[in-house]
């Protein structure tokens, strides 16, 4: 049963969520910064799309037609890139802080891919929360920027399915961006040599 060379170590997605959640919760400051970074970028994105949508809806209701200047979309892209770089940086620091722990985990049976999974799951959890908050902030910002012209009840005239589509998009973008941002740090962590990692002094 426990013979040498028999059997496989395991580390499921659920295991990774449990452990990743512990890391995010205990390192609250870092997690909050990451989530803030991604949610600000996304709130910018959603607020622009929704502002446009609110004006369009307003026009179909007989109001004056307006639209968002296209240069703003460039700013959105820049904001998202900045948040990706910020998260990459924060996750790299997190890898350095955890070198010994990663080495220890490999000592008790973790494979490279388990370490990779752990970091990616942490990214996904942050992305999920970031996307959610980004969407809520974006809705608020869009209402603030259009409400005085269109009336704040404009949101009630937008088809719910369109709101939901944007919600899904903002969540999706958030998940993708935080995963992309974490890919390199997670890869680095997974490739750490346990012997070197255990010799490493902070």
């Amino acid at each position: 049963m426990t013979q040498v060379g028999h059997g496989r170590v395991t580390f499921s997605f659920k295991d990774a969520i449990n452990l990743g959640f512990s890391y995010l919760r205990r390192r609250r400051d870092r997690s909050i910064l990451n989530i803030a970074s991604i949610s600000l970028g996304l709130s910018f994105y959603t607020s622009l799309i929704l502002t446009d949508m609110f004006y369009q809806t307003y026009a179909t209701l007989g109001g004056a037609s307006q639209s968002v200047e296209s240069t703003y979309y460039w700013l959105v892209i820049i904001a998202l890139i900045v948040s990706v770089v910020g998260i990459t940086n924060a996750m790299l620091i997190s890898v350095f802080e955890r070198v010994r722990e990663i080495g220890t985990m490999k000592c008790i049976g973790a494979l490279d891919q388990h370490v990779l999974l752990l970091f990616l799951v942490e990214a996904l959890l942050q992305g999920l929360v970031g996307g959610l908050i980004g969407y809520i902030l974006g809705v608020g910002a869009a209402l603030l920027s259009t409400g005085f012209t269109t009336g704040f009840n404009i949101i009630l005239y937008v088809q719910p399915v369109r709101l939901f589509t944007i919600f899904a998009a903002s969540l999706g973008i958030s998940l993708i961006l935080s995963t992309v941002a974490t890919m390199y740090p997670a890869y680095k962590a997974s490739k750490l040599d346990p012997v070197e990692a255990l010799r490493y002094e902070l």
Partner: protein
Amino acid sequence: MSSEKVIELKELARHFEVGGDLVKALDGVDLDIGRGEYVSLVGPSGSGKTTLFNMIGGLDRPTNGSVYIDGVDISKLDAYELAWLRCRRIGYIFQSFNLIQVLTALENVSLPTVFAGLPRDEGNEKARQLLESVGLGDRINHKPTQLSAGQQQRVAIARALANDPAIILADEPTGNLDLKTGTEIIDLLHKLNRSKGLTLVAATHDLKMIKASDRVVMMRDGRIEKIEKGEAPLNHN
């Protein structure tokens, strides 16, 4: 002690190249360790003790020679099999404890059972029992930072035992502890060795630990200088 060999080292060598120089961290080590044996590894700093542990645990590959665990040449194992070996057959104890800081004592001890594929409640139950057996039954939900050094090392010992390994590798387990706490840890390890038949290999400078062991392996410059029966080697530096 017993005639059954758990660990066999054959002409084991590990060389490092550092800035053009060759460092022979291990330079031809031959050693057999029997099941249930308690072996102390002593030697000056840099003599190769940690490197030897890394070899036995399959964390590092030898430059030359081989390591057999339960008769299996571990250089023949792939990454999965090595991970399994580290997870199920070997328990590590370090000088600096190396607990996962964000996890509670219970979570630290149950982590190896996660990798072993044990269902969660079984792993937790196991961890609870082990923490109780090392005298920390009332501390299971404490984080490492909330525990004393000696208590942290007890958690680490419980973690090392989580998957019922055959071999415990302890690299200076009392190095960061005061005399009294260190003695308690030594007694605990000794008790585990005797009661569970665990093979215990410990690198140590601690005379008490050396005295308690069946054999004392003295290393110098990557070689075994001398092997003595326990109780005797008080004349060593």
